[in-house]
């Protein structure tokens, strides 16, 4: 046996992957906690500009979502994307009831993330990949200008053959317009309003 192997074997604490039962037993937490393939991922709670954008998204998206008669918009909901993979997107839209508990990804038609200064790569690449793999048809990525929070860029992606492709984009100052997955007209400038 090599020294290297002896060192590994002497390690006392060798926890395994986190299970869904353990994750769910954590209950309500201040931080955003997600279960990703058996890793527990703890993320900062959103800063104030980020929270304001989420609030303004709720204000702007709730009327068209309600008008569909079948969809609902939620924030802070745990979504089960696969075995041992439970994420909490900033916003979700789907055929959702108010019952507590984890929601299956199959019930969603849209997931939305607002990028943070610390989490931009995680939201743009990693999470988009997880949502696409789970078959969530639409992904709305909201990218505030991190330097001064004076502008917001919106990217609406549509799932096509298992990957997200750009469906509509609005640069800072523009309006994001789309008929699907429900009629959307998001004025970027209003998302940072107090």
């Amino acid at each position, binding site marked *: 046996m090599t020294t290297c192997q002896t060192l590994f074997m002497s390690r006392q604490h060798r926890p395994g992957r986190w299970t869904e039962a353990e994750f769910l*037993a954590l209950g309500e937490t201040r931080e955003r906690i997600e279960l990703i393939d058996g890793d527990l*991922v703890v*993320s*900062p709670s959103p800063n104030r500009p980020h929270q304001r954008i989420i609030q303004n998204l709720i204000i702007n998206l709730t009327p068209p979502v309600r008008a569909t008669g079948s969809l609902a918009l939620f924030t802070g909901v745990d979504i089960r994307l696969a075995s041992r993979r439970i994420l909490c997107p900033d916003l979700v839209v789907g055929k959702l009831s108010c019952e507590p508990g984890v929601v299956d990804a199959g019930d969603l038609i849209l997931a939305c993330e607002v990028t943070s200064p610390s989490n931009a*790569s995680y939201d743009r*690449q990693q999470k988009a990949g997880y949502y696409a793999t789970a078959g969530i048809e639409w992904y709305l990525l909201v990218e505030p200008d991190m330097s001064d929070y004076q502008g917001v860029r919106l990217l609406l992606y549509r799932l096509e053959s298992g990957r997200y492709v750009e469906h509509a984009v609005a640069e800072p100052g523009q309006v994001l317009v789309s008929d699907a997955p429900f009629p959307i007209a998001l004025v970027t400038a209003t998302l940072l309003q107090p």
Partner: protein
Amino acid sequence: MTSAPFDRPLPWASFDRPLPWTASDYLAFGETEARVELLDGSLWFGPQPDDAHQNITCNLLGMLPPAARAAGLRAVRAAKLELGPSSVALPDLVAARACQPGGAISAADVVLVGEITSETSESKDRVLKSDLYADAGIEWYLLVEPAQTEKASITARLLRLVEDHYVEDAAAGIGEALKTDDPFPFEIHFDDLLDF
């Protein structure tokens, strides 16, 4: 924080600082019981690598350090690798120009970073960590990918940074050897990697 009804310490209970954590906050914690990485401002609490993963790491460490040393570099296992203000990774292997015992290695000193994927790590190794290593300007990324279902299969890809992302420079699988001259001359024989 609520207590959980299972026999496992809540791993971030010892991280008694409010989020967000920076690389310097993370490094100030020193040794921790849990295996934890700070990736893009989030803490990733993962399991310790399983036996197969550790055996492959051991065998890889039999091959690379002598080759690195011959080129004036050092190859080490599971060092803290500081990637930026909000990321510190624990890669399976790094080859660097300088290593401080016990200290974090700066991305600027690293010529190659290596990960051996596992069932829990493969999506983060291929996407998030690949992005973070590229953003930190690490020129070479060695991704060793054992098949998750059977022991007898393994592949490795040596990726080189071109502008802001990695492109494949060399790849090999079981029964073959991965040979390269850059970033330093080394050979990985796959039959030997799985010899445990």
